């Protein structure tokens, strides 16, 4: 059993009591909600005649269903309008702070909470959304929950949880040029598989991780869940504190000094014990891209789609399904594969640094003919910053559409959808069948730089060839 890791320390601090069932009642420091997984939780709370226990510890935004072209209310999609109305009603009834459209702080829930300083080291964070693992980048223990659990947090600010095991993933060396955080995490998922993390919290550490910016660290923790781990985290360090200093919700003055001191004590101890450990060499990682229908079906851009016999027996069936669905042949390369749509955005890669990297590639180039390319900033803040730096002009000049913030074509609950069996180069996190809005649509996950490169090239290309 693990001990003296950050996970253990945060768990112990938030433990309320052991329940008769053998689970632990755990206090949740920050509860984030959005329009998709909260309405049923509010109804169920009200059916039980209950109120929010700590309304001030819940923060809401709207992200999944918002249109990214015209955001004038009422939305033309009346179902989407109804969902936002319900959220507004529920938030005002229960005194919950809502960052609504136009507030300046609206955006994808996992983008906005860090950028306004809500996400802090040592917190337990829950949200009815599996990518809550993102917030682990700050050394918090953050995980996705279902709607019934959203209700439990409303009612008690606690959850019945079972303690996870802790696996340390250490990354030696340094990422090479043209290789990004997204490649690192896709590489991990490809190597360990999509279910390896079940029952574990992932601690990402080592020099290659320490080298990453906070935004890159968020990309890594974000996709822990694609590797099966409900929560992933990185020990807080100076970069974490520098990022947080001065943010709206960050502690101020005397409290700031006390906070930093406490945060420093949270990192896993030198002699911490882990349940498992895996070591990677970051320098060996190439731009990585998915070819199939699970995030684990990925390859280095300079290698070939695996043949079934090269895969583990238990992975072969899903591989056969993937070749068929994707209409791709084993033993071939993805380079040169024509693409129809390029999507830059999502809680994985919709932050300012992601847009900057993509803009660098797009600059002075044009989107290839026949390709629909669009950028959806992760939040209103990201959009504003990007516009201040003129990134939007670079994209628009190249032929990209510049949209308003939201989840957009990451899951296609708004009007942005693939059509028929279109192929999308996407900076998002899931390539499941039908994920981007068409039941035949095909998604290839990659870094924003690779998406940008594909957009100007018209087909999949190794981004290293473009930047060299």
């Amino acid at each position, binding site marked *: 059993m693990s001990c003296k890791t950050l996970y253990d320390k945060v768990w112990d*601090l938030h433990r309320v009591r052991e329940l008769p069932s053998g689970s632990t009642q755990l206090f949740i420091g920050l509860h984030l909600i959005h329009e998709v997984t909260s309405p049923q939780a509010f109804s169920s709370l009200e059916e039980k005649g209950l109120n929010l226990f700590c309304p001030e510890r819940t923060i809401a935004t709207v992200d999944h269903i918002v249109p990214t072209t015209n955001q004038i209310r009422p939305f033309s999609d009346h179902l989407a309008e109804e969902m936002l109305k319900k959220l507004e009603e529920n938030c005002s009834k229960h005194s919950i702070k809502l960052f609504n459209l136009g507030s300046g702080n609206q955006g994808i829930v996992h983008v906005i909470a860090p950028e306004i300083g809500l996400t802090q080291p040592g917190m337990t964070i829950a949200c009815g959304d599996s990518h809550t693992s993102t917030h682990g980048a700050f050394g918090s223990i953050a995980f996705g929950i279902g*709607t019934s659990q959203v209700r439990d947090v409303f009612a008690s600010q606690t959850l019945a949880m079972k303690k996870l095991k802790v696996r340390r993933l250490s990354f030696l060396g340094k990422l090479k040029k043209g290789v990004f955080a997204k490649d690192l995490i896709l590489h991990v998922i490809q190597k360990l598989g999509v279910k390896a993390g079940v029952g574990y919290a992932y601690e990402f550490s080592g020099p290659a991780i320490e080298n990453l910016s906070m935004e890159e660290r968020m990309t890594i923790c974000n996709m822990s869940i694609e590797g099966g781990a409900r929560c992933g985290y990185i020990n807080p360090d100076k970069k974490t504190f520098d990022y947080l200093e001065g943010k709206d919700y960050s502690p101020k003055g005397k409290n700031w000094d006390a906070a930093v001191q406490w945060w420093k004590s949270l990192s896993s101890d030198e002699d911490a014990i882990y349940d498992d450990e895996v070591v990677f060499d970051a320098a060996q990682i190439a731009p990585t891209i998915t070819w199939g229908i699970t995030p684990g079906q990925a390859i280095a851009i300079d290698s070939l789609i695996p043949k079934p016999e090269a895969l583990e027996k238990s992975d072969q069936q899903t591989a056969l399904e993937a070749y068929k669905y994707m209409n791709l042949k084993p033993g071939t390369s993805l380079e040169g594969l024509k693409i129809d749509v390029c999507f830059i955005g999502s809680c994985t890669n919709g932050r300012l640094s992601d847009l900057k990297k993509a803009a660098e590639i797009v600059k002075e180039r044009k989107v290839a003919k026949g390709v629909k390319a669009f950028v959806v900033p992760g939040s209103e803040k990201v959009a504003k910053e990007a516009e201040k730096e003129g990134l939007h002009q670079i994209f628009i000049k190249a032929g990209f559409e510049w949209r308003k913030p939201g989840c957009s074509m990451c899951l296609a609950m708004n009007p942005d959808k693939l059509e028929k069996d279109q192929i999308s180069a996407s900076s998002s996190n899931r390539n*499941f069948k039908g994920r981007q809005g068409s*039941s035949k649509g095909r998604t290839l996950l990659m870094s924003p730089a690779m998406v940008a490169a594909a957009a100007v090239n018209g087909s999949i290309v190794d981004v290293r060839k473009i930047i060299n």
Partner: protein
Amino acid sequence: MTQASFFPFGPIKSVIGKCIYLPGNDIDTDRIIPARFLKCVNFEALGNQVFMDDRKEIDNLHPFDNDNNKNASILIVDKNFGCGSSREHAPQALMRWGIRAIIGQSFAEIFYGNCLSIGIPCVTMSEPNIKSLIYKVNTFKQLLFNIDIQSKKIIAEEDSWPLKIEKESRKMLTSGAWDATSILINGKEKINITMKKIPYLNSFII
């Protein structure tokens, strides 16, 4: 859609019903309930929409459209079922179709917890055992199976197979404590004590 009788309620010691087998590893919650059906403020309509795209795209008959499987309440799956998004809409859709328990080789974690919190037991079996169970299901289409959570067995006529279920989940199901809210609220005094020692709730001065 199978007419769902009652939704789970109170202690769940066993689930008795016909089985439906859905082959495939890594079946994600986007496939169980595609995102466009998440545009709802309650779960009521989900039962008809379960596996909608898979059912539409499949070359032959999808198990959920096969008349033989009508009224089935026990779903048998392979590995890593329910991976992906945390949407409780997925178990809710299955429950509203009529599923009351799931047997698999393994489950994704959030999905497993979501099922538990609405009273749908997810039990696991080894690969050989599950194969033998599926063989039985395929041979005797109308046979009733009993998932006995208390004795950790699946029973059909004279046959039985061992099943695995986490100790905590078993306790929660058999005692009726799977609906956690009231138990959690009862801990209010202890919650307040915990809150007093958490630095970020106390200006970092402890």
